[in-house]
């Protein structure tokens, strides 16, 4: 079973980052939410209401790019969008030009899709998802194939959409990208939601700086850092004390925002303790790895509600 009791709360008007390792169930969730597959058991809520086989019209308010973008290779980008506009949600003709402009493909709109690069296809896929001016945008790995400029443009576009009240739900492996873009993240592992919340809230409790100091200075270093309001501990030790000879020179973990790394270093240096190493990696990455490394296997079919509303 791919999902197990997955219950996502997606506030409206935000960018929601849906994270998880390969095989965690991200794409399965996307496919369930777009009616491409149906759950073996349980139920789905979409846009605040139950979503079943007979509720396909609910998708008129949803724009989606699931897995890889799919087009007729022998048609132009513009013709593909026109073709897409003829299915599903009624779409005004001028909308095709608007979304082509939005994703920067207006000039290449008459070229066949078979001549497009991966990044251009991805942009066209995002344009297709935006065709019906949806309330909810579901994008599976939207940065795939985009060059740096394309990623920045996509980020701006998605942020703009959220600012005008659209809900943007993106799944991604790119933690750095999600941390820059998302307001709220949900982390899934083995089909279960293991953490969800506004990104600042999650990271404020998870940030850390690692400092490498000599073993005989660890206790003094811990005491020195205490006035910063943090309880430093030795990496790999449960009680925070050096574990033995292996820690003659060890890493001290300081649970503090990475932006305060210099403050940590300054405090230690002020006490005559000179760090031989200092790290402050991606907090989201640390959190992600911590949460997804020991997730249990799912045991049953699950549910995947997605309910835009105000974040509690």
């Amino acid at each position, binding site marked *: 079973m791919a999902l197990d009791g997955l219950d996502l709360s997606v506030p409206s008007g935000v960018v929601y980052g849906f994270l998880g390792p390969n095989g965690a169930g991200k794409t399965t969730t996307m*496919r369930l939410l777009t009616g491409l597959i149906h759950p073996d058991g349980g139920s789905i809520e979409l846009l605040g209401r139950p979503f079943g086989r007979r509720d396909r019209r609910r998708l008129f308010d949803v724009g*989606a790019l699931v897995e890889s973008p799919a087009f007729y290779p022998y048609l132009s980008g513009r013709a593909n969008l026109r073709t897409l506009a003829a299915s599903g949600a009624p779409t005004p003709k001028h909308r095709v030009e608007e979304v082509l402009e939005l994703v920067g493909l207006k000039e290449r709109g008459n070229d066949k899709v078979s001549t497009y690069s991966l990044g251009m296809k991805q942009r066209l896929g995002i344009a297709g998802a935006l065709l019906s001016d949806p309330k909810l945008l579901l994008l599976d790995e939207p940065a795939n194939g985009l060059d740096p400029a394309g990623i920045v443009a996509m980020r701006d576009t998605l942020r703009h959409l959220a600012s005008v009240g659209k809900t943007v739900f993106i799944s991604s492996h790119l933690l750095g990208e999600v941390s820059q873009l998302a307001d709220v993240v949900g982390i899934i592992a083995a089909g279960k939601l293991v953490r969800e919340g506004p990104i600042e809230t999650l990271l404020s409790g998870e940030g850390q700086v690692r400092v490498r100091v000599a073993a005989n200075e660890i206790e003094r270093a811990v005491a020195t850092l205490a006035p910063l309001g943090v309880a430093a501990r030795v990496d790999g030790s449960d009680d925070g004390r050096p574990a033995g000879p292996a820690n003659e020179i060890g890493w001290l973990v300081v649970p503090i925002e990475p932006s305060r790394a210099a403050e940590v270093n300054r405090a230690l240096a002020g006490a005559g303790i000179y760090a031989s190493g200092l790290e402050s990696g991606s907090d989201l990455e640390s959190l992600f790895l911590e949460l997804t490394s020991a997730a249990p296997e799912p045991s049953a079919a699950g549910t995947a509600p997605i309910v835009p509303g105000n974040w509690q």
Partner: protein
Amino acid sequence: MRLLVSTLGKLRSRLATWLTIGLLILLMALIYLAVGATAKDTATRPNGQAVLLLITFPGAYALILGFVLGLGGLFVMAYAAAIAGSEWTWGTLKTAVARGESRSRYMMTTYLGIALVAGVGMLVAFAVGVLVTFLAAKLAGVSTDGITDTSIFGNLPEQFLRGWYGLVEVGAVGFTVATLARSQLAGVGAGIGIYFAGSFAGLFLPDVVKYLPFAAANSLIAVDSSTAGASGGQTLARLDPNMALLVVGLWLVGSLAVTALFTERAEISG
């Protein structure tokens, strides 16, 4: 309606559409012109006069239609299979479903588009066939006076409708096979397999094979038995034309029902 218009636009832009019609016309032209060019030698052989009936009007009208239905049926089956299969392999069905489009409506509309294209293709191929047959008759020195035989024209609309009905049926079978296999190649392969397996099996099991898609479609149009073998269609076992209407209808409705049901229940990925 917008979906049908869009489907027709897609089919018009697709190379396979023009390739299928062009190939049918090319083969037909080659065969008829070869008959015309070698008529003087052919006429002296046993059954040679029967071969010349291919290019003798007004009987040639029915034979041209028989040819379009026979080889054209195979082409329509492969064409329909290619269209259906590509909806799955390219992921375009997925995109439409994710936009809230009805799965079965999408596939049925796609097939309706194929059926309309097949009808237009049949008319074009028939018109070119008449022209080529006329040229072949001139080459062979066969009289073309029968080309204006008005007694045949009254019957043509019904023959066209029956022919189109047959093409739509074999196309639906190919469309369904490709849908079940979710593959263009499988659909095309199965179509060709059904065509030739039916022809071969017809030698041994004529009473069974006459109910199969191609044989039933070919039976929709009555063809003079003395010349039927030269038309390119399966002629070993034939149903009564009115019985064929029923059998073809069953194949058509059954195929499309399977397609709709399968598409509704399928897990879509890719």
